[in-house]
């Protein structure tokens, strides 16, 4: 049975980081608590200090800043849904958010919590990774920014060092013609992904793909990018992407996946589905960019 803990309420990021540094591993940040509460009750996690980030201002913004999309760690999944209309990429992220949890849970669950929990099946990791998002981290020694793919280091493991917190997610270079799509297989309406795939495409002025991202979820300890599929997409026209290239990209997804068999699905099924889902994600990006999304 879980222990009692002391509740701390910082009101600035600096204070939050100080608290974490001084209590070390015995302290944990509390965002929406939707993962933490269950883990605490089940005895999977245990802490003496709970640092509630809810009262730290400026952590829950979702905004465009020049050609960057900035998403605060404390923005909720529901905020993501509500901000869908902001930009083509928030459209994709809003759609992702609506696949997740329930409305009730989404109003509590945060984007930072979803990423810091570092579950292989977390739904936000693949689309953000495909978009080339970066994680901004604040620690006792100041701030650093790393690619999101490096943020995840294993099942429920992140690159956060002692005393560090995730402050925001930055997606660079979101101007121009961009689209993203995330697809997953789940069982009931409330479920975590059995397998998932996301794609991101950016076009240059001539209509060729200049940037592409393909990322898979729930087929490895962390989100994995399918670099070969991305390379294949770059330089293609939308037509080429839709006809043939998507199919090949799917084959690369299969080759990249390193799935396991568990109670939810078999390795074989997961692996096969990476191709279907990757093709669908690419197809959807193409449709959006052709104006048929």
């Amino acid at each position: 049975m879980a222990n009692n803990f002391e509740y701390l309420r910082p009101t600035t990021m600096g204070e939050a980081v100080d608290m974490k540094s001084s209590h070390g591993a015995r302290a944990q940040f509390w965002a929406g608590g939707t993962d933490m509460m269950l883990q605490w009750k089940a005895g999977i996690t245990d802490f003496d200090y709970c640092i509630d980030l809810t009262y730290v201002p400026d952590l829950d913004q979702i905004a465009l800043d020049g050609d960057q999309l900035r998403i605060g760690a404390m923005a909720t999944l529901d905020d993501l849904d509500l901000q869908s209309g902001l930009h083509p990429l928030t459209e994709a992220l809003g759609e992702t958010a609506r696949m997740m949890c329930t409305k009730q849970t989404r109003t509590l669950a945060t984007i930072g919590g979803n990423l810091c929990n570092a579950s292989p099946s977390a739904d936000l990791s693949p689309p953000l990774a495909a978009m080339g998002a970066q994680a901004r981290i604040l620690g006792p020694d100041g701030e650093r920014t790393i690619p999101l793919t490096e943020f995840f280091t294993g099942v429920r493991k992140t690159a956060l060092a002692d005393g560090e917190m995730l402050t925001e997610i930055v997606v660079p270079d979101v101007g121009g013609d961009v689209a993203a799509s995330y697809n997953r297989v789940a069982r009931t309406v409330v479920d975590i992904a059995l397998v998932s795939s996301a794609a991101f495409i950016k076009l240059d002025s001539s209509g060729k793909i200049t940037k592409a991202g393909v990322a898979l979820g729930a087929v490895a300890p962390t989100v994995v990018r399918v670099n070969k599929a991305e390379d294949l997409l770059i330089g293609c026209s939308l037509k080429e992407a839709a006809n043939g290239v998507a199919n090949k990209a799917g084959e690369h997804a299969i080759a990249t996946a390193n799935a396991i068999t568990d109670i939810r699905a078999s390795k074989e099924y997961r692996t096969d589905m990476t191709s279907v889902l990757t093709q669908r994600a690419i197809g959807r990006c193409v449709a959006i960019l052709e104006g048929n999304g």
Partner: protein
Amino acid sequence: MGVHHMPKKLKVVGKDVPVLDAREKVTGALEYGVDYAVPKMVHGKILRSTIPHGRIKSIDSSKAEALPGVLGVVTHEDSPDLDWIGVWDNYRGKVLDGIARFVGDEVAAVAATTEKIAEQALALIEVEYEVLPAVLDVRKALLDDAPQVREEGNVRDEYRVVWGDGKTGEDESDHIVELEIQFKAQNYAGIGRNACICDWNGEKVTMWTSSQTPSELQSGIHQAFGIPMSSVRVVALPSGCSFGLWWSNNFMMLTAMLAKKIRKPVKIELTSQECMAAVKRRHIEITTGRMGVSNDGQITLADFSHLMDNGAYGFKTDVYFFCCDLWGGAKNGDYRVRGVSTNLVTSGCMRAVGDITMGLAVERLADMCAEKVNIDPVDFRMKNQIKSGQQLRMQEPRQHMKGTLTEYVDKLTDVQKEGWPEMFHLSSGSTHELLRQGAEKFRFKERWKGWGKPSSVNGSKHRGIGVGTGAHCCGVEFGGNTSSVVRVNHDGSVNVFSSCGRQGQGSETTLSQVAAEELGVSLDMVNIVTGDTDAMPWSSGSSASTTMFRTGWATRAAAKDAKKQILRIAAIEYFDSDDPETLDIQDGIIRSQNPEDNRNVSLEEMMNVLCSDSLAQTTVITGRPDEVMPPTIAFARQWAAQFTEVEVDVETGEIRILEFLAGQDSGTVVNPKVLKNQVIGGAICGAGFALYEGIEFDENDGRVLNDGLLDYKLLRTGDFPSDAEVFFVESPDPVGPFGARGAGESPAAAAAPAICQAVYNAIGVWVDVPMTPEAVIRALNER
């Protein structure tokens, strides 16, 4: 005489009144087992086995007992040497007997001042086992050299239903189709946990727990501890959905053992993992079947062999399958069932027991036959399913408390049987009208494209339509009779005492409606006690779809008896000693049935005077059933026919239910809201079984792996069409109260085959349940 006549115009029965506890429920005021507390209560926790099979060599609780705050520990050494039997043989054994029979089995229990201390104490109990070989495979459990789970051996007597002749059936068949399906065990997975509080005070034992079978729990305590029933008071609290889970469970007996030892009220509150992995579940079932059909679409042969696992403590010999009645038009039938013990968590009756599994196998084979002779599923069902008045198949060998049912019926006098429907024949209703009306509403014939043919295809999305049927009993008397008491108070208000518990089935509302209708008072004058065995007559609880039919019948009979007594006194005192039969109570007023006669007295005045003036040697009027109820199992069934359209993504295997229409014939609808709730809830339960639900057992030790809702996937309302429609066909029952019959189980049985058939039509291959995305893809690949 068991047959009640229908009054001309019903005033309370049939009305769409909200359930009586709606306000309590939505405001959170209703106290479930886990919410309940009593003064001076302490807390208990259960030590559970970590191995699937073992004999306890030694158990040392001294360290646990020494922990500050611990009040007592009980082990098998404290257990009375008495067997107790749970409802429908869902448990048979001692409370503890020193043998662990599954991972999670109860081994000992601790009481302490706090739950936390009790839990810490569990870790201090040292158990040494002699490890015994375990049997985790249902088929292997049948073998002679299999490890034996129970003293009585693993294999129960075969239960068999036979009519006609198998050889003749084979000869008459133009086609014979075969299958074997293994059904995973469904988890009750009721939303809401349970707790039990027991106080053993002197010779008096009081137990508060969520249960749908209060009286049987009282009997269980009486058996387990060898104490008089009069010393046992069970107060059954409401439960969240139960579906058969919270009847009389051994953890309740363990709570009583602790209470007896420490002489303080003890509460054991189960965790959700315990609820999902250590109490009960549906059986793992394996159906092997053959069905024959002649070219004109007549089923000539139905030959089924069914194996079900009882888990560790279940002791059932069959699953109570009424699909053989449903498909009673088959010319020759042979259904064999065997129960077998395994070192897995106990299994028991879950909603639509037998009919959701074996019934699904029968429907599948029937569909395969229909395809062979190219008849659509609606017509094929109409041709081969039983009609009202026809002979029932599932009957004769059944054990009544007084021998077999046939012997019992034969021994009754004509007076006792007067007015009874014909025994062993279907009294009323069938699937026919449901299929006819349902097909019309669903536009089935227009939408039907043929067997294995999608109704539409859009890229990877294939849609298909399907229809499924289900039947079940309306209560069974073998587990014990049912009763009700109706008390009319000084002010003309009414208390009903019916032992049926409250698991959301709405019986407190519908039984009150029955009493109010019969007594001629408004519903707000009626209050009902459904859980306190100190007040209620013994009654088989809310199981086997019994409550509306049998307890409703008893409630109406008790109300009639009360009314008869009232009218007899009223006739003398207020109506010049007229024949009481000429009087009636309407809207709380006693008056003559002759509209010209203006004499009247209010029920309140009459009852008030009765008390103060001693018109009779009584203060209140107490009514009880004063006639013999015909054995329900010998004539009454409930029917469901459901239509659906599904969409299957042939690339990912995902299935969505797009449309759902559920037809239900439960006789007279006593309360449309309550019945609709039963039908939709049942359909969702059946749909969940078809699509996702199934317990995963660890292959090495049999522990339940998906013991939480994260990986035990229940359908949410969002997984089921929000515009699902329900329609009723009301074939009145000649015996049931105001023509009502049972309802809770046939809807669950019909949903699964409807969805399976729709998936088949969408993609052209049959998929075994649960039809998870992966199972669909596998089936498509194996095509």
